[in-house]
């Protein structure tokens, strides 16, 4: 299943990550990626939320595979960009789906968000 606990703060996970040499930052039109980020230098990923619905999760992983295949030969074509754009679109959809699940996870929470003064929503210090 998708979205199991992934702690980016564990450096071991990304020790083998492809690290861009710093001088590439000077190349026009290239995205500069922080070196520490690629080494896993301390990003904290909150992974306590619900898992992505399997339907979308499968689409995301399929789209990544397809994008990697499409871009294998040459990665400047429109097809390659379109393939990675599809990955972005599906990743965003997956994230929205997780947010929706989180919002609807507890009906009392969502009710109390609108009516914090209702008797069943009040909290007392003592």
């Amino acid at each position, binding site marked *: *299943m*998708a*979205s*199991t606990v*992934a702690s*980016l703060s564990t450096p071991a996970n*990304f020790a083998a*990550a*492809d690290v861009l040499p710093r001088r590439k930052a000077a190349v026009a*039109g*290239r*995205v*500069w*990626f*922080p*070196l*520490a*980020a*690629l080494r896993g*230098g301390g*990003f*904290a*990923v909150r992974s306590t939320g619900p898992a*992505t619905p399997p*339907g*979308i*999760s499968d689409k*995301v*992983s*399929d789209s*990544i*595979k397809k*994008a*990697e295949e499409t*871009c294998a030969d040459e*990665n400047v*074509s*429109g*097809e*390659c*960009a*379109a*393939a*990675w*754009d*599809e*990955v*972005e*679109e*599906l*990743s*965003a*959809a*997956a*994230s*929205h*789906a997780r*947010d929706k699940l989180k919002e609807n996870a507890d009906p009392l929470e969502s009710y109390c*968000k*609108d009516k914090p003064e209702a008797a069943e929503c009040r909290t007392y210090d003592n």
Partner: protein
Amino acid sequence: MAICSAHTTTSLYSPCTTTVSHSSGFRQKQVIFFTSSSRRSGGGRRHGGARTFHVSCSVDKPVVIGLAADSGCGKSTFMRRLTSVFGGAAEPPKGGNPDSNTLISDTTTVICLDDYHSLDRNGRKEKGVTALDPRANNFDLMYEQVKAIKEGQAVEKPIYNHVTGLLDPPELITPPKIFVIEGLHPMFDERVRDLLDFSIYLDISDEVKFAWKIQRDMAERGHSLESIKASIEARKPDFDAYIDPQKQYADAVIEVLPTQLIPDDNEGKVLRVKLIMKEGVKHFDPVYLFDEGSSITWVPCGRKLTCSYPGIKFAYGPDTYFGNEVSVLEMDGQFDRLDELIYVESHLSNLSTKFYGEVTQQMLKHADFPGSNNGTGLFQTMIGLKIRDLYEQIVAERAGAPAEAAKV
């Protein structure tokens, strides 16, 4: 003979404004409740004298706001903050397509411009174009429908389904009080741009975009740092060509950068955020720090207020942005405690709040949203208040009354 016009208090919460012209010089405040017909004549006959009675619902003519940003750059969070400032929770249309991208609250309707894709996912794949490419979008339809809504007409808007990648049957959109169009291209087409009463661009630096997408996607099966990096790089040429240039047209730009408080920081956790506010925009009076028009650097942490590491630093001053005069407010660092936020709010002016502490209250209400402890949340909330103010000024102006914007 005196002519006076009475009007209801223009607020987001009153459904309609009424303008009564009559000859008796009588001043009155009225709220008209009506069901189907939008006009009631003779509503106040007992006052005597000839009168015309116009009920102009603000529902008739929405104020139109544009929000531009790349995918995964915080548009949804911004929309949640914005609709919260306007009052009431924004929900997807009830009983409609569960994959609808629209959000509706009492006052506001937010539509996603992806719904105007002319090419669905397969079409884009065949032609080798991304969704960022104007060729994948139907700007004629976008213009026609936004214009119709602005004129008070309902439209049947297509729905782009982000899960299937197909265009679903359309949904009915009726004119709200505030109509927000959010997406990749709200300011791309000149005709659409001209319909906007206010526009915002979220400008996320490459470093921060990468950090945010890692947070969003790393837990997703199939994703890796390489795939996240490849996706950003592959989309970048089209982003630079079609999305980024829109920021020159925005009335407000929220720029998100890595912090300068921690030397060589590239964790992307602490942020430096700039709010660039265009000068001379009708109904929009920029927020300022201490002294309007001066250049100021302010570190609020010291003897009176102690802050947690790495502290907070503000800057404010005039500047130019794409040849336009702007005011820039900058916040580096993050709030760790409530008293830090209140202290900062009390030193900002022109916030368009209705009571002291409203910014803080809004921030606390949504403490669970991303960015609630830094400049992204603060500036998004401030822009929300500015849009509320802008709306109230426009409605007051339409009602023929001088705008009395509540300012704290």
